[in-house]
């Protein structure tokens, strides 16, 4: 069989597209890693982040997606009826069967002439929805498409991932380049069958392959996606003002940035995991919204997600003059991170329904 060999793998739509509106959301509750350490490690041992965000009792991926979507709409100031797709990527959809996306679409007034679907690809479900939105708008099928990456991640009590499994994410409204606050100049996707982390149907918590989640999974896929995109776009790390890499902790994105040749300054504004943990499908896109909160016209941004299973999506963005006009129309990512109520492990177990009473 002949294998189709695209010239350089670069994904570029027929019509140039970009981000017309963006919005972040992070719940207010914070569980310090020291609390988990106290509970499970006798207060000894290292912690991968300072603290993580925890959703309140009345929050889930639907309510959080609505918050982020409304922020994106506030910045975009478009008629929601012009949105022809609402796509939500998450590994914490409240329903196994019944879409999150229709509830979100209804809440922002984007129904009924709308395509709606939920996406699943571990931590890159959000950027998977973004790739699809680029295609939907870039083909001319829709004027606008809304892609969301949002999670309330599940961490098994006592597991290494409990320190980081957090809640949050962002909504990105994709439109034609002329309406964009940041033009998406090219993208690239790289996937293989690599079983580093998974959750079976009906299982409450995910399983993972310990150190297998590192080199052969996270690093291999992010490096390949980032290097392929930069090669296809004929760019080097220094061409980008900012970069964000999927952030399951602080160490991994810092290390992959260094390997690729990016400086700590380039990733600093988007590196949020130390303060909110790993927001899974929200992790790369909320790093992007934090960068958009500070970026200047002409700045180039590299975004590379990672989803277990496994794959990475990489995006090359250029900020336009329009960003400064719309930025202040909604709360910034930092506003949400600064809005902080610390809780202890007992409160956390209640909010996250860890106690089974029957």
């Amino acid at each position, binding site marked *: 069989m002949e294998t189709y060999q695209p010239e350089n793998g670069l994904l570029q739509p027929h019509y140039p597209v970009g981000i017309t509106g963006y919005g972040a959301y992070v719940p207010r509750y914070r569980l310090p890693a020291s609390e988990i350490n106290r509970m499970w490690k006798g207060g*000894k*041992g290292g912690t991968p982040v300072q603290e993580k965000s925890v959703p309140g009792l009345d929050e889930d991926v639907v309510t959080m997606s609505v918050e982020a979507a409304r922020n994106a709409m506030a910045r975009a100031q478009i008629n929601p009826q012009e949105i022809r797709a609402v796509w939500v990527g998450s590994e914490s959809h409240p329903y196994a069967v019944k879409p999150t996306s229709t509830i979100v679409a209804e809440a922002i007034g984007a129904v009924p002439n709308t395509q709606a679907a939920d996406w699943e690809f571990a931590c890159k479900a959000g950027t998977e929805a973004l790739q699809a939105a680029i295609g939907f708008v870039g083909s001319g099928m829709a004027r606008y498409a809304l892609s969301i990456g949002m999670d309330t991640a599940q961490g098994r009590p006592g597991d290494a991932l409990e320190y980081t499994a957090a809640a949050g994410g962002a909504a990105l409204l994709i439109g034609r380049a002329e309406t964009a606050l940041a033009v998406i100049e090219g993208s690239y996707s790289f996937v293989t069958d690599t079983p580093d982390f998974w959750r079976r149907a009906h299982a409450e918590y995910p399983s993972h392959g310990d*150190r*297998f989640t590192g*080199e052969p999974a996270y690093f291999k896929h992010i490096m390949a996606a980032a290097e392929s995109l930069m090669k296809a776009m004929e760019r080097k790390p220094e061409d980008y003002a900012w970069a964000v890499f999927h952030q399951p902790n602080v160490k991994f994105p810092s290390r992959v940035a260094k390997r690729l040749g990016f400086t700590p300054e380039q990733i600093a504004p988007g590196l949020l995991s130390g303060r909110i943990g790993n927001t899974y499908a929200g992790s790369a896109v909320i790093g992007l919204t934090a960068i958009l909160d500070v970026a200047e016209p002409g700045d180039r941004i590299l975004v590379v997600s990672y989803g277990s299973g496994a794959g990475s999506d990489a995006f090359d963005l250029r900020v336009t003059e329009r960003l400064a006009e719309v930025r202040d129309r909604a709360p910034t990512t930092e506003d949400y991170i600064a809005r902080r109520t610390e809780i202890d492990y007992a409160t956390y177990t209640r909010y996250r329904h860890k106690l089974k009473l029957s």
Partner: protein
Amino acid sequence: MNDVSIIGIGKTDVSEHWETSLRHLSWYAIEAALDDAATTQVDALYVGNMLAGRLSQQDHLGALVADFAGLRGIEAVTVEAADASGGAAMRQAVLAVKSGLVETALVVGVEKVTDETGSTVTEAAATGLDADYEMAHGLTLAGAAALMMRRYMFEYGVTLADFAGFSVNAHRNGADNPLAMFRNRLKAERFTAGPAVAEPVSLFDMAPLGDGAAAVVVTGSERAKDMVPQPIRVLGSALSTDTIGLHDRQNVLWLAAAARSTAAAMAQAGVSHEEIDLFELHDSYTIMAALSLEAAGFAAPGEGWQLARDGAIEREGQIPISTCGGLKARGNPLGATGVYQIVEVAQQLRGQAGDCQVPDAKIGMAQNLATTGATAVTHVLAC
């Protein structure tokens, strides 16, 4: 009986070889060893392995590896003695050639621990302990080492910091070995800050498990002289056992099997402690390194740790150990470890140990232990 010499050695790096299978790891080491010996004529294969059945659902490695290595048809079996499997396989090859029934024997030690992760591997590795009296009660290898270390600290009034020299030395040497799993140096000040695995055993005195394979070709010494420029003579070879469970030992701080096999191997070789230029011991835990030095007679009971403190175990010291990183820094591929030790001693005696070279090494000893020392295999080699 024939005298036995090593005519070929080969090994892979010890690492997390996620994408390399048991058979491929074995083949890479065998190919290197056969190239080194400049022969393809092998009559028997002894495979040292501990966990393939549990972690890779693959037993019957004799047939598997012989076939994959292009040696289909030869006599081939697995030798298992927990983490002393590699040394035990070497012992079988030596016996085979010594008996005259086998002209040339090939030994490969291979371990693949990354087909599984975390607690599955820990549990599998603990099967070398007594299943009924130790493992069933939750004891792991680290737990058993912790019991011995705690007792040692109590009996001899030493602290965790007194064991630092073993790991610092191993990492310093590992930094010079391109095939080592860890090539970072370890500062003595950092040693006591290591995360606890089973107190007092920490991450910094426990050897990391890794994947790898090492191979050795042995034949009669007369034949060897005509085949390769630098045959390495096997002067002594002895395997001894102790109670499998710690609880059955009169003194848990005396490695009786190690003492017996060392004495036997050194007697066969006719060498004294002063004549031994390096000692590749089984530093699976720092406590095991200290106890090995004592059992082998390089230190009195309770004083093994002092050789680390005083620098006697360094490459220029009185009795260099872990010269290529040891289990601690080169990595511990369980059933392959004993063959790595033989390969490393052979490299030292040939003067081919690169930046790890011990000056003027003429006689070297390798000792492979299983679990808490329930099996000990000792080989004395000379150039």
